[in-house]
């Protein structure tokens, strides 16, 4: 896919507008990872469009030197769908946050997943409303005290991966903002997937939910609390690479290799391409402290894309129609002459 002839570099994708995110915000790392991957797509700069909704993350298009469209709260998936349907040759990237995507934009999100429109959605999940200064979002953990939950929230959060897979997404990946190289690789896989790709990035908000992902991304815990999903490889993790995920009955379980007769052969081998959602859903569901969080491409299955299907129907209808212009249409059917 990489096109050496264009010789694009990261700098080609820096827009020159002042980046106004807080210093230390995870958004900077995601921006950098996207700018790193865009030159590798083999697409011309003018054939890339970044679409966003509203929130801190959604300022993203202004900072990327491509075509960019900053839409309104929650509606980016609908706008991105329109862009892609209008011109399927465009590589469309959609940037959204946990509030934008799973609260006000929930409807558009699930339907974009279901339709399998070929866009790449990156969901910045900091489990808080940042831009409006610290209200809980649909991804905030139960009991979290925020501006609008002074006694703690009394509702359970969405897990974006379960939501996406439940809504028939054909690609779901998870990344952390502390691992830029891994992020870029995942974005590349997202791009290469034909159809809707959803990548959740666990992103830290320094101001309103600082450390919310620390139990996953912290230097001391990350090896024990992240399991990298690599297609065709066993789900082994841990500082000593001796822990693994097994499927026991209908449930996943964490085991230690070498204990209770467990060998590497018992560890579940990741298959991102299985159509059945069961194991992917369970992997997306895993949370500390019982489980490590699944990172990497959890699901990547082949299915017809909405835009290709529409274009196929159009080509077929054009080839088989006697009506080829509006004049033909106007004069078709029952007419009479005076």
């Amino acid at each position, binding site marked *: 896919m990489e096109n050496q002839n264009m010789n694009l570099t990261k700098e080609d994708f820096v827009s020159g507008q002042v980046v106004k995110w807080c210093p230390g915000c995870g958004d900077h790392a995601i921006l950098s990872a996207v700018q790193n991957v865009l030159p590798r797509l083999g697409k011309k700069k003018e054939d890339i469009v970044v679409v966003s909704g509203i929130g801190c993350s959604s300022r993203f298009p202004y900072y990327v*030197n491509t075509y960019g469209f900053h839409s*309104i709260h929650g509606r980016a998936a609908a706008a991105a769908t329109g862009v892609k349907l209008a011109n399927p040759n465009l590589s469309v990237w959609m940037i959204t946050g946990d509030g934008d995507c799973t609260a006000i934009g929930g409807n558009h999100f699930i339907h974009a997943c279901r339709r399998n429109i070929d866009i790449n959605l990156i969901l910045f999940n900091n489990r808080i409303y940042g831009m409006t200064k610290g209200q809980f979002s649909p991804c905030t953990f139960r009991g979290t005290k925020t501006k609008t939950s002074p006694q703690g929230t009394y509702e359970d959060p969405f897990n974006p991966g379960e939501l996406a897979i439940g809504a028939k997404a054909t690609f779901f990946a998870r990344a952390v903002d502390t691992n830029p190289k891994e992020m870029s690789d995942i974005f590349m896989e997202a791009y290469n997937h034909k159809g809707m790709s959803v990548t959740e990035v666990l992103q830290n908000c320094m101001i309103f939910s600082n450390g919310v992902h620390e139990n996953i991304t912290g230097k001391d815990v990350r090896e024990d609390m992240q399991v990298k999903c690599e297609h065709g490889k066993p789900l082994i993790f841990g500082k000593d690479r001796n822990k693994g995920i097994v499927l026991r009955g209908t449930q996943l379980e964490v085991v230690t290799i070498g204990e209770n007769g467990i060998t590497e052969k018992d560890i579940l081998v990741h298959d991102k391409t299985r159509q059945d959602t069961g194991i992917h859903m369970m992997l997306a569901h895993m949370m500390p402290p019982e489980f490590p969080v699944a990172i990497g491409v959890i699901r990547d299955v082949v299915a017809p894309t909405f835009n290709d299907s529409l274009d196929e129907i159009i080509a077929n209808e*054009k080839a088989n129609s006697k009506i080829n212009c*509006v004049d033909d249409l*106007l004069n078709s059917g029952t*007419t009479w002459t*005076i």
Partner: protein
Amino acid sequence: MTGKSKVVELEQVVIRFAGDSGDGMQLTGSLFSDSTAFAGNDFATFPDYPAEIRPPQGTVAGVSGFQVHFGHKPVHSTGDLCDVLVAMNPASIKANMRWLKPGTIIIFDSDSLSDKALEKAGYTSDPTTDGSLNEYKLISAPISALTEEALKDFGMDKKSMLKSKNMFALGIVMYLFNRSLDSVYKYFETKFKGKPQVIEANRTVLDAGFHYADTWELFANTYEVHAAELEKGKYRNITGNTAMAWGLMAAAERSGRQLFLGSYPITPATDILVELTKYKNLNVKAYQAEDEIAGIMSSIGASYAGCLAVTTTSGPGLSLKSEAMGLAVMTELPLVIIDVQRGGPSTGLPTKTEQSDLLQALYGRNGDCPLVVIAAKSSAGCFYAAFEAARLALEHMTPVILLSDGALGNGSEVFKIPTMADMPTIVPPIAKANDLEYAPYRRNPETLVRQWAVPGTEGLRHRVGGLEKENVKGNLSTDPTNHQIMTELREGKIERVANDIPEQEIYGDKNADLLVVSWGGTYGVVRTAVEKLMAEGKSVAHAHFSYIMPLPKNTADVLAGHKKVVVCEMNRGQFAKYLRMNYPEYKYEQFNKVQGLPFTIAELDEKFNDLLK
């Protein structure tokens, strides 16, 4: 034709077909209109049906009607009082009493009479015998029984047989107006292709109705309306919603832009979406979104990506689209928003017509948020209104709200088929690749229109969005004076559209005592009422507005010089308020109706005569 009864010539006729929802009255009416087209008459139709698909059987609420107005002279309206009412049950009579006039012929299925049917219709006594229909010519015929009799050799069950009783009624009406049955036969052959038995059964019932009327001499006279004196040319029958869809396709062809429709089903606008999904052969991308907001947002995305983008809706949907319309105003992208108005507020009267979204269309958004508002004036005129809305949107880089209404959308009319080569070319301001001068908000100094830099074009990468932008450059800007400049530029751009629209016409004497003002879908009935008064020598003129924001530049001249100005509209006076605000120097009388039904000529006539006293 046996010619037993005398043929009387008429100038114009109004027929209303009424029955229970599910009795097939919409189809019966359509088939009669088709035959009207073949007879060379000018005509207009109006369906009047309940919101429910199968409301309680036999009740007044469940009555579905379809009216056809046809004539030897040009027909502007769908007509009001009926010459003929076809009533398939007692409720159909009850529901339509207000549309009857002395002498109206009522063709009634006498088999529908029963104590239960009368009770359901809310009758305490039988109207066909208690004298309450004495003013009218009641023709009671055992339509159901005769339909069963006609089909007795077809081996059908009773329920299936009775489904055809509407064709028996149609046969009677076809006889009454000396119509050839050929167009109806042709419909059967196309509709039921490959089902010869069904074709034969329908033909048999239709013929039976026709011959029954003849043999039993149901009518003292039959009637004939001569072919209308229409301009030479090729014609077809078209509904407003279909005309709207076709006008959009015409604009796509004349602008070289792909047509994209992002929409969500809503009565009475759904048929535009339904229609456009058929034309993938003409490269139309019609997208049924998950909701109203996704409908308009996908259109805005498609517009950004270079399409002639359209969204269609009705009142409640327009409310949902408000924020997105603001985005289209801010990003200065072309977008056509078609609102087929229905009775409001809220869910209101979904299947009934009204013009009460006007002020919402003009002002229903946050911020100073101007856009172009125009209105369609007739069902066939929807073709040209859609084309014009697309032209203004594309050439002026602005959202345009096009107001239609339920009566226009569902109503049908004779449509003179245009030739695409005669339609104007639409030239949007597409930015050229690698234009070093390009900036997102650099404007044509004359029109204030910005250029359209379509993704995929080399050298024009830029970012737009809902946040305020720096004048010319398009970078984010919260500078206070910049916001004032941009707000005024957006307003000025819309004002300057007035340089690109025709002057307001006045029909009749420009100094007439009474100026009748109307807008949108009321054109036909108001014009007919005005013509009637003119024929009586009354000093009256008519100004019908299709351009609302901005108003034509000569609007003040049109309003000046009359003793009285009356604004007629199907709302509580929204256009009158708008004129009062823009031209406070004149006094405006109002005539308003919000009953979910179009004006009648009689009520307009009465109002105008009062004002002329």
